[in-house]
């Protein structure tokens, strides 16, 4: 990819209307290498990855398990099993709280600190990549589903392009960036493997242009491979699959439709990282790579955390400078509140942010500044949709707009009147445009 001198100085142009360059707050954070937390104290491991995916528990109380041993097994081909994140003894079978799915069946694992692991087979070649992904329990972040299910759907839809999403334009988040810095070759290799399995004609790795050394390193790693490195400008929400598809391939997803309908599949880099462990090292998913940051955290950084670690232990482990007034699971703009004190880490956890001050302000009437309309990445009119709150009927026009919303939260973020715009739109989408459109297209990031 050749750039002119001007592009080198200023970066590429933004590829969609709207969006905003947020202060990224990654400066010191992204320089610290990934550190691994070893399990201390009991792990509350959820035995399934999503509430509606059924698994069969194959361990009993009192069993000794080793790192990577299966704790549960899929009962159908839509589901995946969960593997032990540490070696130790199962002390209890009881429900655990996860942020995205609420209570899930779980196992309490008391680690013995031996770090004994399952023997690795080197001979999975006779099975397909998809079977290997299913056996290693690899899950995809967006859509939230096991990766082998996502891949099967993509193959059935006949996708022609694979985009690996390493944009990560939300503030604070550094997991993808650190992965690219530390394992560029593995990411390229895994992308090639996944592209092979999908049978796509183009495999694209989208990375932020502003990290130029990372881009150059990836380009040299990808030389001679068929993975294309595409360096993009990174206004928020360039990280969203819909915006990425617009930026990379200039295809627009119809409101509420799936990305697969545009013959492309977008996989987050975190998913590719888990797939690389499964495909290149035959390691099941046992850890989550999380950014732990925020102004209440003493040692912010990117951490490899065993699944089932309670968030409270995570927070104490990195050091809490002041008690957090707000704890966020995920990015600052799209994440969720923890909801419950003893939420645990799941395979797709990406961040825990602790803030010393809650960002709450009293909303005042709209002043018609138009900032939300200018910055909206999909071109909808948030104030008019907010008025739906007090209305009983919804025009087709507004229903399309509700479906087109990608829930990036930018309208609420920029609103000088502090109106709950995106919150209201999400509520009214459920009210007027039916349930979540699909697991694929415009769901939360």
């Amino acid at each position, binding site marked *: 990819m050749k750039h002119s001198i001007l592009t080198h100085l200023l970066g590429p142009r933004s590829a969609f209307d709207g969006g905003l360059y947020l202060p990224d707050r990654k400066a010191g954070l992204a320089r610290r290498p990934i550190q691994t937390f070893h399990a201390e104290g009991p792990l509350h491991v959820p035995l399934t990855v999503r509430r509606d995916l059924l698994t069969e528990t194959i361990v009993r109380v009192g069993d000794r398990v080793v790192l990577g041993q299966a704790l549960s097994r899929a009962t159908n081909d839509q589901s995946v099993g969960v593997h032990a994140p540490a070696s130790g003894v199962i002390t209890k079978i009881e429900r655990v709280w996860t942020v995205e799915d609420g209570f899930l069946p779980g196992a309490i694992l008391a680690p013995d600190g031996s770090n004994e692991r399952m023997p690795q087979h080197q001979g999975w070649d006779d099975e397909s990549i998809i079977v290997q992904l299913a056996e290693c329990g690899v899950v995809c972040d967006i859509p939230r589903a096991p990766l082998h299910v996502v891949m099967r759907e993509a193959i059935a839809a006949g996708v022609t392009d694979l985009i690996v999403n390493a944009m990560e334009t939300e503030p604070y988040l550094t997991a993808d960036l650190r992965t690219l810095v530390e394992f560029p070759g593995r990411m390229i290799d895994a992308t090639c493997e996944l592209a092979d399995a999908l049978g796509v004609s183009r495999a694209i790795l989208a990375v932020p242009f502003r990290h130029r050394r990372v881009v150059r390193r990836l380009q040299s790693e990808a030389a001679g491979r068929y993975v294309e490195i595409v360096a993009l400008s990174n206004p928020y929400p360039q990280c969203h699959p819909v915006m990425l598809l617009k930026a990379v391939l200039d295809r627009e997803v*119809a409101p509420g439709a799936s990305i697969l309908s545009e013959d492309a599949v977008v996989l987050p880099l975190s998913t590719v990282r888990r797939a690389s462990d499964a495909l290149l090292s035959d390691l099941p998913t046992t850890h989550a790579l999380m950014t732990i940051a925020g102004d209440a955290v003493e040692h912010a950084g990117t951490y490899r955390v065993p699944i089932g670690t309670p968030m409270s232990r995570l927070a104490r*482990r990195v050091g809490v400078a002041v*008690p957090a*007034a707000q704890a966020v699971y995920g990015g600052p703009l799209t994440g969720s509140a923890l909801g419950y*004190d003893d939420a645990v880490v799941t395979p797709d956890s990406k961040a825990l942010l602790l803030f010393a001050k809650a960002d709450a302000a009293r909303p005042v009437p709209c002043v018609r500044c138009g900032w939300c309309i200018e910055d909206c990445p999909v071109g909808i009119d948030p104030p008019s949709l907010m008025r739906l709150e007090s209305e009983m009927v919804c025009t087709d026009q507004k229903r399309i707009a509700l479906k087109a919303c990608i829930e990036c939260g930018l309208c609420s*973020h920029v609103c000088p009147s502090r109106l709950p715009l995106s919150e209201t739109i999400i509520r009214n989408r459920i009210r007027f445009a039916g349930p979540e459109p699909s697991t694929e297209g415009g769901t939360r990031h």
Partner: protein
Amino acid sequence: MTPDVPWLASESALRGDAPHRRGVSTHRHILRTWIAAASVVGLAGCALFGVDALRVILVSLVFTFGVDLMFVMSLRRASSGRLSRTFLIGILAGLTLPADVDWHVAATCGTVSAVVGNVIFGGWLHPALIGRVFVQFLFWQKLSFAGASIALGPVLTAANLFVGDLDQSVRVEHYEGWLETTVPAPADAFELTPPLWSLRQFAQGQVPVDGNFRFEPLLRDEMPPWIDTLIGAVPGGIGETSTLSIVIVGFFLIYRGYLKWQLPVAVLSAAFVAASILPVESGGDYVWFPVFAAEGGRAVGLAYVLYHLTAGQLMLGAFLLAGDVVSSPMRAHGHVVFGIGIGVLTIFMRLYGVLECECYWAILIMNVFVGTIDRFTSRRVLGTAPSEDAVAA
């Protein structure tokens, strides 16, 4: 690891909706910045017109704010940012008035701004301008040029900035420019023809031609040097004249993102084009494209057009009045249309209209069309055909 230190300040740390972090610019920041910007222009006005200017601004501010405060208190509700805007409206209303008006003119202007503009219309027509055009009709003897054979307004000399008294003014015979003008000891100020009045007279063919020269008599005999209209040392409203200070605070507002640059650019370029094209009556016939006029080897037409931009209320309108958040369109595209409307209407009304305060009228007229403009500049929803959003909800 210290297990006994609480990691959460309270239970509420676990609740809340996305987004969890908000941007830093709240309506308070926007209004404070706007109030500061208007105050800087007011300060420039106080320098040029003395203590009288401060008195007019304060009276207008007190009445606007006081009346709206009474209304808000009678509602028994929190003002939720409304009073900050009223404060800004009060200053802006003062800036549009000349410094030598009586206090009851400023008081009426402020009261009407609050009652009619804010309470009755709810702010969607610029409230300060409603008050201003109201007093223009009510106190026409003082504020209007109508019927006067020669209009005059006082300006402080450069030696008497801030402290001079506008009442102690004398007429000067040979006016060479503000910096060169001195007045005898008891007087602090001199009287001058407002350039806006001269321009209007000229457009109506009232300035006699001098041989082949049509524009030269206006520029030579009637108008002050162009640099004076930049500094603001010409008669007019307190905040209208000082182009330099308006542009500086306007750039600051644009830099902070509280004013869209498209608006002043659209207003001024539209006014430039309109003044360049629209004909003026001179010596019994109409001169089209006055911008191309050249007399005696000088580009007098261009000078004439530049006077149109800086001499009247256009600068204050383009940077501080039209950009009012509530009464302007939502999108930048809309601001372009809105600005073009203001610029063209202003010049048209100045050349051929009978209403004075033409820029204020132009802004009020365009305020009426803001809803229409918003409708036709709505954005296309991603993934839909362009034709679908033609029927904006």
